């Protein structure tokens, strides 16, 4: 079976999802940034009651705030939501995420269950891990940061 068929057959729940950082719309930007930094994650998900996502605050939101000179201490995250926000269902095909990343440049997608509650994050990193798992024989053997040996060899 080819990779394209795998993407269409397998579901988002088969991806290595990441735990999301959850904040509400009133969270101050500085607090969200501290959470993102300490969790080594590039976004926080803005949720309302029952863990229902309503938006996303990302590293690009931070860049925008700094560029505009907005105070991190007096602005809630809701004022600087990232416009590239989308949810995807656990049972949707991985192809859905793939197309959003490739065609629209999405970095993060909120994964929700059948009740619309947030269960995790999918996106570029998840897909890269998925590709790595599918093609471990090609990917896992690479020596990063060293010149290809044939070109480094004496006399080559």
């Amino acid at each position, binding site marked *: *079976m*080819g*990779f*394209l068929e795998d993407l269409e057959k397998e579901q988002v729940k088969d991806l290595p999802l990441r735990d999301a950082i959850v904040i509400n719309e009133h969270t101050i930007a*500085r607090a969200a*940034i*501290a959470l*993102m*930094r300490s969790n080594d994650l*590039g976004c926080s998900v803005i949720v309302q009651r029952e863990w229902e996502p309503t938006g996303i605050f990302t*590293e*690009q939101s*931070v*860049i*925008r705030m*700094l*560029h505009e000179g907005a105070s*991190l201490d007096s602005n809630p995250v809701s004022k600087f939501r990232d416009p590239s926000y989308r949810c995807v269902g656990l049972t949707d095909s991985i192809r859905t995420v*793939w197309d959003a*990343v*490739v065609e629209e*440049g999405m970095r993060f997608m909120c994964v929700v269950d059948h009740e619309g509650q947030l269960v995790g994050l999918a996106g*570029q*990193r998840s*897909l*890269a*891990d998925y*590709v*790595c798992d*599918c*093609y471990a*024989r*090609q*990917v*896992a*053997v*690479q020596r*990063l*940061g060293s*010149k*290809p040996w044939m*070109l480094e060899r004496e006399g080559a």
Partner: protein
Amino acid sequence: MTEYRRFDAPADPLSNFEPPTYRDTTAELLGEHHVGNVACQPYLSVESTCTVEEAIRELYQSGVSSLLVVEEGNLVGIFTERDVLERVAERYSRVKHLPVAEFMTSDPTIVYSEEPAAAAVAAIAIAGHRHVPVLDMDDQIEGIVSPRRVFQFIETSWD
């Protein structure tokens, strides 16, 4: 008296060669094509003396997530959104006039354009870097690869 020994020419030196086998066309693409085949341009670069404020303006106005930092045309680091989050954001007013070189990621993970395309996947998935500079064999910058660019490259194996 000189002795002569019979020299039998060896059989075909490639007789034991087993060409790699691939599970599908995507595996073959990753194993046989080079990083140089992945679209790695355009990219943006700034001098290491550029200030943090200028670099952030560049990130914002261009909409990109990373800038290559160069000195005399040579790569010395990379300044990404993650560097902003980790080292700049919470003390921006104090550091915005300092050179970006103080806050960039020095000695970033790189891939060479002659390496298999799978190396770009490894740099992203295993080393965990979202933006990976691509250098030629003379260590000159060719561009940068990102997950999106690698995925677009993988799609060419679906035709």
